[in-house]
Each structure stands twice: as structure tokens, then as C-alpha cells.
């Protein structure tokens, strides 16, 4: 008792100035969690609300729109996450060696991060317009600088599920590239040059040096990128919302359920499913990477 009183006394000022932020953040987090659970497991009917019930989850599992969104989201993430890593890795490898004007180019590479996401989405909306957008014009060979006719008819990019989601993915990867690049660049620069020197004297080829030194030593940075990016891709909202309106992912289906179906309960149920997917996939990715790192270090 006296120990607690002593602790409280010496730390009083600290506790007082810490309280507002802690209460605000953790309080809201608890309220949000409570509310999302309450909404998802409540069924509002003329006879009054029913709680708890798995009604919305059962209804969703039978809803073809939800099923399609679910499948799309899984594909979107399975393609998007590795793509984010690969693009970041390539960008970082291109920029890792010193050359004239590297600082300027590095600053240029950070530009996508500074453009508001909604603006990037709108730019892709304009570029991939149908029938007269720039991408259609160029692929149809209508410009003098690229006189090759790749296709004879314009493509309705936003009118096809596959293309709409690929364009969304392009936007997502374009925007996130600087973050992945900076993390991997920091990882690359942390690898000592002497290791490469030693390998070179022992006669290792460039590809051997890359596969046996760079990649294994880069796994911590790459794991960070994979874990962070997979969460981001799962919950991506703005690009598919603007560019793939007719082909919802789970995140955009939440918006549709809330605004079009006017069903906050079903929207919360979708949100909860998305949250579960994110948590499970993060744990999975984390363990796979840990296992992989162990294997790589042994070799």
C-alpha cells in the first residue's frame, strides 16, 4: 500500500499529463471495439433488437455480393502485398549505390507519398478514362511518339472487374512505393561493405553476392515491409472506391452496406470479418517470415 502511494506521489505530475491522451486513445479504442461487436451481433427487427445473434454473418455468407468481395479482397492482397515488396526492393536497389544526383532522384521518388491519395485515385480515373483516356489513346497508337497499335478498340478499364482492380492496385503500389523503398534502403545501407569485399576476394559472382549476402541480411527490412503492407492492402479503401465502384472489395463493401443498404449492423459484421482477416494474416505472415529467416541464416 505504502509503495503504491509512494509511486503515485512521485509520479503524480507524469500521471496527470499522461492521462488525457491515454484516456482519449484507449477510451475511444474500447468504445469502438464494443460498438462494432454490439452492432455486428445485433439484429434489429420490428419485434425489437435481438442480441447476440450471428444472423448477419449467416446472411452475409449467403450473399453473393459479399462472397465476390471476399474473393476479390483475397486476390487483391495476395497479388498486392508481394508487388509492394518487389517494387520497393527494385527501387531501393537502383538507388543504393552512390551516383551523381542521387539526392535529387531520391527526393523525386518520395513525391508519390506527398500527393493526397484521393488525388492519385482521381488522376488514374482520368488517365484510364473510357473511351478517350490517355492510356487508351496510347495503346491504340493514336500518338505520334508511340505509333504501335496494341489494341484496336478502347478498353473500358473501370467497367471490367479485373482491370478496375488492377488499376486500383497500380495506384496503391505507386503511392506506397516510397515507404517500402525507404525501409529497404535503410536495410541495404546497414549491410557492411566488408562482407561484399570478402565475398568478392573469395570469387563470389554478383548473383551469388545478392542471393547469399544481400537477401538474407535484408530479411528483417523485407519482413517489416511485408507485415505493414499486407495490413494496408487488406484495408485499402480509396482506390477501389474511386476506380472500382462496381466491383467492391471488403473495405468498399462496408461503405456500400452502410450507405446503400442502410444497414450499420451488416456493415459492422463485414468490418469485423475484415479485422479478423487482417489479424490472422498478420500472425501468419509474421510466423512464416520467422521460420524463413531461421532457414536462411542456417544456410
Amino acid at each position, binding site marked *: 500500500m505504502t509503495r503504491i502511494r509512494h509511486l503515485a506521489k512521485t509520479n503524480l505530475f507524469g500521471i496527470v499529463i499522461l492521462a488525457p491522451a491515454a484516456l482519449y486513445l484507449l477510451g475511444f479504442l474500447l468504445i469502438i471495439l464494443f460498438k462494432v461487436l454490439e452492432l455486428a451481433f445485433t439484429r434489429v427487427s420490428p419485434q425489437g433488437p435481438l442480441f447476440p445473434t450471428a444472423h448477419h454473418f449467416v446472411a452475409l455468407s449467403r450473399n453473393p455480393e459479399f462472397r465476390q468481395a471476399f474473393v476479390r479482397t483475397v486476390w487483391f492482397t495476395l497479388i498486392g502485398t508481394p508487388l509492394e515488396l518487389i517494387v520497393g526492393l527494385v527501387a531501393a536497389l537502383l538507388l543504393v549505390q552512390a551516383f551523381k544526383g542521387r539526392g535529387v532522384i531520391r527526393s523525386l521518388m518520395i513525391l508519390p507519398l506527398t500527393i493526397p491519395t484521393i488525388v492519385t485515385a482521381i488522376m488514374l480515373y*482520368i488517365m484510364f478514362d473510357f473511351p478517350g483516356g490517355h492510356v487508351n489513346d496510347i495503346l491504340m497508337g493514336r500518338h505520334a511518339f508511340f505509333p504501335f497499335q496494341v489494341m484496336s478498340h478502347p478498353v473500358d478499364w473501370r467497367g471490367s472487374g479485373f482491370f478496375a482492380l488492377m488499376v486500383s492496385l497500380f495506384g496503391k503500389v505507386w503511392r506506397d512505393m516510397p515507404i517500402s523503398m525507404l525501409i529497404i534502403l535503410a536495410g541495404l545501407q546497414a549491410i557492411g561493405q566488408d562482407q561484399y569485399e570478402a565475398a568478392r576476394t573469395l570469387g563470389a559472382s554478383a548473383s551469388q553476392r545478392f542471393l547469399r549476402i544481400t537477401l538474407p541480411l535484408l530479411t528483417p527490412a523485407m519482413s517489416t515491409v511485408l507485415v505493414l503492407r499486407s495490413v494496408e492492402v487488406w484495408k485499402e*479503401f480509396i482506390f477501389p472506391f474511386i476506380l472500382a465502384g462496381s466491383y467492391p472489395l471488403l473495405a468498399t463493401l462496408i461503405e456500400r452496406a452502410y450507405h446503400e443498404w442502410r444497414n450499420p449492423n451488416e456493415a459492422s459484421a463485414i468490418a469485423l470479418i475484415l479485422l479478423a482477416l487482417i489479424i490472422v494474416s498478420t500472425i501468419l505472415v509474421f510466423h512464416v517470415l520467422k521460420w524463413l529467416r531461421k532457414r536462411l541464416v542456417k544456410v
Partner: protein
Amino acid sequence: MKERGTPMARIRASKVLWFMGIILMILVVLVPIFIMFKYAISDRSSVVTGGMPIPLWPYHPTMEQFRGLMSMDAFVRSALTSMKVALLAVMISLVMGTPAAYALVRYRFPGIMVLATLLISVRLFPDIVSVVPIVEIFTKLGLVNTVWGVAMAHALLSTPYVIFIAMGVFETIPKDLDEQAQILGASRFYSFTRIILPVALPGLAAAAIYVFLLSWDEFIFAYFLLAFGGLSTLPVMLQKVLSWTPQHNLLAAISVLLSVPVVIFTFVVQRYMQTGAVAGAVK
């Protein structure tokens, strides 16, 4: 001679490949940004071409879109709303986050490190999951369609960042400074507000700019909270304008005005942003 020639050729080939890679990367990064500026200064005839391909450079570059926006009531009001929301979000998250960060750095009572991790990782909670409950709660509190509502939601996103950045700032300030002030008779409150805060100000300014930009860009909370009201922030207005199927040069002009402050400020605080984005990520 032949044996020496092969590696040389290989080095040259890899140089060329590298150079092409750099050029391609710069192109991919710059093309959407170029398109934005190009459309923003396009005249009507370069956008509505009647089946002809859209020119890569407008026939008659013009500033008329920007002039039009300056006298467009909806745009001016949205810009002002965006500004108010962002400044309010900066205020809320700095007033709460800075003292909290100071306490997390200077005090060592049990469980404080867990608390620090917990507070910072609140940001990892997916925004799209929390948005429906937030709107439901804010509807009850009368915060939907208000500047305060959006600012409070943005503060929820930004306070963890403020705590993270400010902790880094306070860690660079030697502990002796507070101790000496207290030996000289200053209260803890006095030494924090009059001695530590002024020293920390440049770092905190970076945090403030960061929060301002986060709020200025933010779409999801702003959209859900303002979707059916008269109020819009700029990103929400852009989305609302999109649903009128307007001419593309109008969209691009709004986009430019929305992006330019962000691009400028980001390069001003780039050093802080980079350490912020990367610090703690690689370990």
C-alpha cells in the same frame, strides 16, 4: 584479352540496365503528376476533343480553371473547412500528445513501456473498421457534419504519431535540464512549460505540420462524417464533384490546389518525416 573483355562488357550492360531502370522509375513516378498539372491548365478544347486523341500538352494553356475555383463558393468553403479541421486536429493532438510523450520519456513507473507501445499502436487499428462505430457514436453526440467531429476523428489518427515524434524529440533533450531547473526551485509544471517545451519546439513544429498534412489529406473519416451534409473538406468535395461527372480539367485543378501545400510542406519537413517513417521500423 578475351577474358578481360567479358566482365567489362557485363559491367557496361549492367550499367545500361541500371540507367534504364532509373529512367523508367522516374517516368512512372512523374507521369500521373504531370497529367495532373497538364489537365489543370487545359482549356476546354484540349479536354473535350470530340473523338480526337487528347493532346499531351494543351492547345491553349490557361489559368481559367484556377480563377473559376477562386470564385466558386463550394470550393472556397471546402478549403476553409479543410483548414479549420486541420488546425483543430493539430491543436487537439498536440495538446494531448506532447505532455503524454514527455511523461512517457521521463517517468519510469511500472507498465509505462507497455502503455507507450499500446498508445502508439492504436494507429495500427484499421480506420475502415472503426469508421462505422465512430459515425454511429458521433451521430448520437451530434458531431456528424461538424468541423469538431471530423477534427476529433483526425486527432484519433494523429495523436499516436504526435506521441511517437515528440518522444523522439524529448529523448534528445538531456535529463539534466529538468533536474537543474528543479534544483533551482522550479516546479515540474514550470520546468516543462518554460524550459523543456521551448527547447523541443522545432521538433514539435515538425509534428504539427505532419498532423496538419494528415488531416488535410484524410478522406475516409471525413467522407463518412460529411457524406450527406452541406459541409465538405477538400478531399470530400473532390469526391462529390466527381459524382457530377465534370470536365476533367476542373477535377485536376482542384487536385493541384489540394496537393501543392502538401508537396511543399513535406519537402520542408522531409528530414523529420524520413526519420519518423523509418526509425524503429528496421531493427
